[in-house]
């Protein structure tokens, strides 16, 4: 009985320490973005790896999501003669939810595992210790550039996923369902306009759709870096770190998306 209690105590203590360490890492990585030295070159390299490297899967994901969304919704909407609303449905779904979330999940699958594996192998081969021995803070050198890169590229990739998804829906609507491109695009524009505008210009749906990737980018970079820097146990540990980084980031992104949506609905669209 005592040993069970001790084991539970130990696990709870480890989990609590882990969460605290996570937030300390996140706080320091963010704070280092505002103080010298800056590692701009490293940031650019990471933008290339996370952003340009993820572009093909984001394009494919966006395109097929828009296409399948149009196809599935047409089945129901046609029954009620409401197939002209396909544009509204695809536009709202892509811009508000599917674009940001699917794009973040795709980039997480690719980039979080890469970041965790890279930092993890640097940990087990003592390269992190070497950095520290030269007076370099590994969080400043390794985490902050990746965080900045994720914060810059994820909104851009989301925007691309939104546009390509809407384009996918357009292709299905015109060539498979038989509604005109004008009707489809008018539906998309209507649904964006209905949500209202920020500063009288930016559709609110668009703003919420681009705020989310900022949060998702931070989750991706912090989580991957946390597991990478805390890798233990050689190559097996590197594999575990990569897996945990992807699973934890994905779950956090989905959970945070719900709460973020609630907050954004209250802030940007009061009364809903």
């Amino acid at each position, binding site marked *: 009985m005592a040993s069970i209690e001790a084991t539970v105590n130990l696990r709870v203590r480890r989990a609590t320490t882990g969460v605290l360490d996570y937030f300390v890492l996140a706080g320091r990585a963010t704070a280092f973005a505002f103080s010298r*030295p800056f590692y701009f070159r490293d940031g650019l390299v990471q933008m290339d790896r996370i952003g340009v490297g993820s572009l093909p899967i984001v394009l494919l994901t966006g395109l097929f999501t828009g296409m399948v969304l149009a196809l599935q919704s047409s089945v129901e909407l046609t029954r009620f003669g409401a197939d002209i609303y396909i544009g509204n449905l695809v536009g709202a779904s892509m811009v508000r939810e599917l674009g940001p979330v699917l794009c973040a999940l795709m980039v997480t699958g690719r980039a979080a595992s890469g970041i965790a594996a890279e930092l993890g192998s*640097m940990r087990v*081969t*003592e*390269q992190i*210790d*070497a*950095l*520290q*021995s*030269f*007076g*370099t*803070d590994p969080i400043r050198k390794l985490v902050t550039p990746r965080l900045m890169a994720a914060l810059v590229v994820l909104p851009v990739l989301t925007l691309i996923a939104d546009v390509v998804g809407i384009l996918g829906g357009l292709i299905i609507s015109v060539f498979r369902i038989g509604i005109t491109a004008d009707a489809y695009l008018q539906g998309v524009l209507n649904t964006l306009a209905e949500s209202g505008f920020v500063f009288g210009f930016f559709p609110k749906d668009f703003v919420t759709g681009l705020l989310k990737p900022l949060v998702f980018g931070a989750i991706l970079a912090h989580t991957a870096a946390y597991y990478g820097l805390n890798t233990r146990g050689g190559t097996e540990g590197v594999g575990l770190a990569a897996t945990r980084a992807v699973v934890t980031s994905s779950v956090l992104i989905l959970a945070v998306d719900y709460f973020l949506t609630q907050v954004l609905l209250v802030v940007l669209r009061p009364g809903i």
Partner: protein
Amino acid sequence: MSSAAGEYLRGIREELARDEAGRPRPVPDEIVIRLSDVRLSFGDLVVLDGVSLDVRRGETLMIAGESGSGKSTILKLILRLLRPDAGEISVFGEDVAHLTFVEALDLRRQIGMVFQNAALFDSMSIYENVAYPLRENTALSEDEIEHTVRERLDFVDLDPDQVMAQLPSQLSGGMRKRVGIARAIATNPRVILYDEPTSGLDPLTVGTFNALMRKLQRELHVTSLLVTHDIREGFRVANRVNLLRAGRIVFRGTPEEMVAARDPYITAFLS
């Protein structure tokens, strides 16, 4: 101790006691690194159990011991990559355990570290690896950095033109370790810490490596702390030896004194 072995060790000691011009070097007395009653545990595992040692300016102290005896942990404590549970660690007279994070970074800049597997940054070229501490810790121009990198690579008997553009994965283990030394001495540190530098190397490369360590001591007057389980190779470069067993120092003395010791554990370790 056989007379031939004793003669050989005395020869090394005499070589180390003279500078590059063959003049006798003054006996160092300034303590550069001091550990006093240092204790460290990871959970229930006691790693260091009251370790005390001194490293004097300009000397090479070897910490020998079996794998898992806590040798490498001592180096991490000196660099403040770990904090002791109890005891004091002073480097250049500063209490390492009480330094702030930023002060610890400053301290590390004065210490070079040669890692067991070189720990070269595998995404950077050899040039970028050796230039890294110069870029981080000095205000040298790019020309000056290149000049220094070439000089350091030359010092460790590597042809700069041949290796500078290569990645660490393209070099042999011995060459990588030499690059590790070149990187460690890039900023002229006052102290160099070696963590099992000759493990996994062939005998010829080990010989070259030992000659390099002696050259560093004679020509650059660097204070060195060598951690190794390969005691025979360590004898070729060290002025003094501390033997660590299960987190405690069980022998302190010169290599000759160690060879002459009658303690069964030391005899077994040497054999």
